[in-house]
């Protein structure tokens, strides 16, 4: 007797296991490409520009906006307890430990991760990756790995910029708008933030998120179906899966390592 629910569940489980296997093989391919010559410096720099430089305005602007909101909300809350002098610490710790890497990860996923998946997916559809294979060129080596490495490298830098911009945004609201003393804002920030625990931890998170977004975007693009709908699906799933993965992994990094 056929039970559709059981069949569906079994099929989904098998698909999930197959996907895990494909992801592991894909990661293996990237690691293999990393150690095999030639070193593709030019492509890596191009990717750094595409992902990093072209995201600067978005990340910087968003950082300032987030910092301003945090400054406003933080001040209004702290002033009730007479603790508005701690505004620098509140804004600083919130963006350094959590919001900086997480929001940068989400922003970069939307801007560069989706573009990366769409570009590779289009290359699949237009047979460009097959064209490379026929020239005995490994697409993992030429196309995928530089993008993946650049995403991993650029995420902590963008996260640092987002964090600095947020602290500046909090300063704008707290000091320039609401009249808090600038020295108090900065000294509370300096007293509260520990470089090893907070700043390095934040950068570690950003590196993990960068690797995660890079892996998901390149994997989804590389395995896109050969059609416009396939590219669209790869792009959408990159944004959805990367965003959810960032939030889940952020919880585990925080819970396990206290970062």
């Amino acid at each position: 007797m056929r039970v559709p629910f059981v069949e569906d569940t079994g099929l989904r489980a098998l698909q999930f296991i197959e996907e895990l296997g494909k992801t592991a093989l894909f990661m293996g391919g990237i690691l293999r490409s990393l150690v095999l010559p030639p070193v593709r410096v030019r492509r890596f720099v191009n990717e750094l520009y595409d992902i990093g430089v072209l995201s600067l305005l978005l990340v910087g602007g968003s950082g300032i906006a987030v910092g301003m909101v945090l400054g406003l909300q933080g001040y209004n809350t702290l002033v009730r307890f007479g603790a508005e002098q701690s505004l620098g610490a509140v804004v600083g710790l919130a963006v350094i430990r959590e919001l900086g890497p997480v929001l940068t990860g989400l922003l970069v996923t939307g801007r560069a991760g989706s573009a990366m998946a769409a570009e590779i997916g289009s290359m699949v559809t237009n047979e460009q990756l097959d064209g490379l294979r026929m020239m005995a060129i490994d697409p993992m080596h030429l196309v995928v790995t530089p993008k993946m490495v650049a995403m991993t490298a650029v995420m902590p830098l963008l996260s640092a910029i987002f964090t600095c911009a947020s602290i500046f945004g909090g300063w704008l609201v707290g000091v320039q708008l609401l009249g808090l003393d600038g020295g108090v804002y900065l000294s509370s920030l300096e007293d509260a933030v520990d470089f090893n625990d907070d700043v390095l931890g934040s950068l570690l998170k950003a590196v993990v998120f960068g690797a995660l977004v890079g892996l998901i975007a390149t994997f989804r693009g590389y395995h896109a179906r050969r059609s416009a709908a396939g590219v669209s699906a790869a792009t959408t799933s990159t944004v959805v899966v990367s965003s959810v993965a960032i939030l889940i992994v952020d919880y585990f990094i925080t819970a396990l390592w206290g970062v």
Partner: protein
Amino acid sequence: MSDASSSEAHVVLREVSLAFGRRRVFDGLSCSFPRGAISVILGGSGAGKSTVLRLIGRLQRPDRGEIFVAGQEITRLSDRRVNEVRGRLGMMFQGGALLDSLSVFENVALPLREREHRGDVAQEVRRRLEAVGLPDAGPLLPSQLSGGMVKRVALARALVGDPEIVLCDEPFSGLDPVNVRRVEALLERLARDLGITLIVTSHHIASSRRMAEQIVFLQDGRAVVGTPAELEASPDRRIGDFFRADGEGPFTLPEGAAA
């Protein structure tokens, strides 16, 4: 009509079977492609013409059967060994498969640079672009080329490694009659001058009649092989109709097709 096992065969497919899901594309397909000859693969839409080229380039593995390229059985080769075989192949894809981000010059130079070509890369690229009648196209991007120019650049790229076998997937599709004749003459001249084995898929009956020394007609997952004249006179009505459908001879539409 000829047998699949010619002693002069440069490429041989023997008892090849392939299915995509439930759709069986080939069911014991056997055919061979003579060394130094122009062979055209014909067949209706979905007959598997492009898939034959993908099998020869090992972009696709068969479910069963053997494929010999220059005497080497390729279906079970490692990736590294396959790349050695691909070094003897050139492939012109239907859409060109040129990398959008690279200029025409860089596209044609890519396989040479990747193989660390010892000669003058620029001179070799210029020679190939001149051979396809595009000596000044080097600085252009693929997006700036017409359909015919894309095909010719793709052919130039397929020829840069001095391949023994060139696979051309639908070289005449989407071209106006003048460009069809231009590409056709180019292929014939290159095959004659360079002595390469040319395997072309096409829907273009007139070109196939003019240039093919052998036609491989795909039908029901198998191949019928012969000269253009032999196939045109085939007692199999479907083959005869395929040739007549493009001309002015007597032709009967299949039942229901005229609705």
